[in-house]
């Protein structure tokens, strides 16, 4: 059976796969995050009998089912594109990771069933108190299914960067970076989903005309921001552990990302992280400042401006690139190859520590403000200053989205830049016959002999 050569530059295939993978991943991570946050907010609402949480979880459920519909089709598209542009890699990876991939799809099916049941049985559940437990079970089942589906796909994704022998089932599934990647992604999903939901409710706030809706959206945006910002502060610790593993197992990939040709991507992640902490703290300051002046929140009002200043300086240092030569277009501005300010140790470590510690302090101020007698989210409508807070939430959600995309790209490019689709096992070059026909088929013995094989 002869395959038609695609007769395209390989770059086209790489771009198509990258676009499909990133858009798929963006929605998939949102589903994991929103199913967990949605189930949690409904549970809090049920326990505290707070109708605001009930309304919030219902809104989250609505976004969840819309995303589930979108992602399921993006998933099909992604699989189609993989089979068209990288058929040899895909069929080999499938042969090695058949069960995790099949289980991933099966748990996503379960997630879709539970999520739809959850959303469409809301009115039914509210008719009788005993039904509410069933309803909560639907929500948590959707969340659990999406988390397991993600675990399965993380087995595959981590295997591609740090593979083990394919016949050793446990070693390949629980490869050296699997747990680190999964933990990193769970927290990352909460960050991105928290910020993006906050951004959505900021839009809802700007669009709503009734005061009761504006108060709700302001509160909902604050709650989702609290989740996103809290998770953001945990990210560096997990990310650091993850990178340490990559450094030990695949030093070439680590080098590419931290000091090599793709280090500019990690610089971009640092810029976005700094922006998220800084803008998030600015949002907290604006919210706390909007509280009615009384004894409550006095410490926060005094500490937050200082904190913002420290964060701005720390963010500036963290964002400094070290290897200037690898930043596209930088040669136009300077001939220097290295920027000493951008050294990881000690500059960036200190900067990161300040960002996390001061960010945490601000988060605690914000968390406490929800319990005040005159909360910040009530009774500030119509003032000029409040209009910037929804804008900040939207900015934060866009930054979070960019960071998710950049981190995904960074992880994939650490392999692809060194020519691998599965590190040390399958190379991009092996797929050349798909594009140019059998004349350069890397599967032939001669081609296989030419290709270096990693240990």
């Amino acid at each position: 059976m002869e395959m038609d050569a695609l007769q395209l530059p390989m770059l086209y295939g790489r771009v198509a796969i990258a676009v499909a993978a990133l858009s798929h991943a963006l929605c998939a991570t949102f589903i994991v995050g929103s199913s967990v946050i949605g189930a949690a907010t409904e549970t809090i609402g049920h326990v505290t009998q707070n109708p605001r949480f009930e309304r919030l979880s219902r809104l989250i459920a609505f976004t969840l089912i819309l995303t589930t519909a979108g992602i399921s089709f993006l998933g099909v598209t992604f699989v189609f594109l993989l089979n068209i542009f990288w058929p040899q890699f895909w069929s080999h990876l499938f042969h090695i990771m058949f069960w995790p991939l099949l289980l991933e799809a099966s748990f996503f099916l379960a997630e879709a069933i539970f999520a739809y049941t959850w959303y469409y049985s809301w009115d039914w559940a509210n008719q009788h108190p005993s039904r509410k437990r069933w309803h909560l079970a639907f929500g948590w089942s959707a969340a659990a299914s999406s988390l397991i589906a993600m675990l399965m796909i993380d087995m595959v994704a981590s295997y591609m960067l740090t593979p083990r022998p394919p016949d050793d089932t446990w070693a390949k599934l629980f490869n050296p970076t699997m747990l680190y990647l999964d933990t990193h992604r769970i927290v990352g999903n909460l960050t991105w989903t928290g910020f993006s939901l906050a951004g959505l409710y900021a839009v809802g706030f700007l669009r709503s005309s009734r005061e009761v809706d504006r108060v709700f959206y302001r509160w909902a945006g604050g709650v989702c921001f609290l989740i996103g910002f809290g998770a953001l502060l945990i990210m560096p610790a997990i990310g650091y552990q993850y990178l340490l593993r990559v450094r030990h197992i695949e030093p070439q990939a680590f080098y590419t990302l931290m000091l090599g040709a793709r280090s500019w991507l990690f610089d971009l992640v640092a810029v976005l992280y700094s922006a998220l902490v800084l803008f998030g703290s600015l949002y907290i300051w604006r919210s706390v400042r909007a509280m009615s002046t009384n004894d409550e929140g006095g410490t926060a009002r005094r500490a937050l401006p200082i904190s913002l200043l420290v964060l701005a300086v720390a963010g500036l240092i963290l964002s400094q690139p070290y290897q200037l030569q690898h930043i596209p277009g930088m040669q136009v501005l300077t001939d220097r190859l290295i920027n000493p300010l951008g050294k990881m140790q000690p500059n960036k470590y200190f900067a990161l520590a300040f960002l996390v510690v001061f960010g945490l302090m601000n988060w605690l101020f914000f968390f406490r403000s929800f319990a005040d007698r005159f909360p910040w989210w009530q009774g500030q409508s119509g003032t000029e200053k409040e209009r910037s807070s929804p804008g900040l939430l939207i900015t934060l959600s866009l930054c979070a989205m960019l960071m998710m995309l950049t981190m995904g790209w960074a992880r994939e490019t650490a392999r692809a830049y060194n020519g691998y689709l599965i590190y040390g096992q399958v190379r991009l070059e092996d797929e050349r016959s798909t594009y140019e026909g059998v004349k350069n088929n890397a599967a032939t013995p001669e081609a296989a002999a030419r290709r270096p094989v990693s240990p």
Partner: protein
Amino acid sequence: MIDYGTALPAIQIPLLGNSAAVGLFSLLHIVLAALSVAFMLMAPLFEWKGRKNPFDRDLALVLTRFTVVVFSVSTVLAVIMVELMIGLFPVTTMWMWNHFRIPILFGVASFMLMLLVLYPYYHFWERLRACSITLHIALGALAAFFILPWVFMLDGMGAFMLTPVQEAGMWERLHNPTWLPLVIHRMVGNFMIAGYTLAAYGAWRASKPGDPGLEPYYQHLLYRGWTIGLGAFLLQPFTGLLYALTIHRAAPDAHESLMTGPYAPWLYAQVLFLALVFLGNDLLTKHVRTLTGNRQRWLDIGFPALAALLVLCAAYPELRRVCVYLLIGLTVWRLADSLAKTPTGAALFPSTVRSVALGLALLSVLLYLTMGVIRESSRRPDTVRGIISLQDELRHQARMEGALR
């Protein structure tokens, strides 16, 4: 390509076996997809009719809600199906997708447009209708239009696997001899199962409407669904004949294996379901005949006898066809005769209707799926007739094991 220095055995699905696993998820996906396609096509038409009849407007909303609700489940079932195909039949899957990549990308683009239109159509139903009903109907029609390229593309790939066209471009491959007959046959089949499913839902809800005021609405659903289901069902033998004749002309050996090969029992099962659906439709209108005194007692015995004869003639195509056409003629005549004498509201009521309608829905789905199984089986042992066989898949597995070793 890969030098792992290790061995990895071929993938085998336990208990079910590889082919049955792919078949199971394909059939599950196909049922939901067929219903969704038919409902999407029906929704704007009912909404248009709903300008005069509010029941039809509500029906359009129910149909769209079904489509939206089952969409994700149906698509994920498709993902599982595709993953199984890649894992278990990689040679066929890679080859097919390679040879249809442009139509696939075209179908994907069209499907995305459909999604972009369908979701506002459903989720902003009242808001958009408040602006302009015509605009809203146009949105629904647009969603229905955008789903068609996807359906036609998949039918083209399915038809190609049975009657491939070699030495041709991608679009010519899609436009293979059995493509159009298959498109027509499946589309009518989609309407058949959608109609009967709608009728079953209406009958089930009409018997327990909760709010008594809703009973006429559910009766309306039952009547509409049954009309569509029956209309499509009566058309199916003709579209099926067209499809069978095209297969006979393009791939006589495949046609022969359908009739007499190891998968012939599927054909007998199909004929049995066909006979049962005829009987179910007849039962559904028995009440009308009683009401109008139009008993036609000789036919009350003759009709089931003819249906039984159809089952007995399953192995004889000419006799089978005669029986089918006679049954179609009798069904139309008895219906026309009875319905002319009674208002349609009383036509489908009351008591036994629910179980008969549910039975008809189940039978129509079984009939639809059996046809799919027959079509797929007729290629065996090839996966793409005359091009790729199951042997090629085994050879690939062996090569893979060798490479891994």
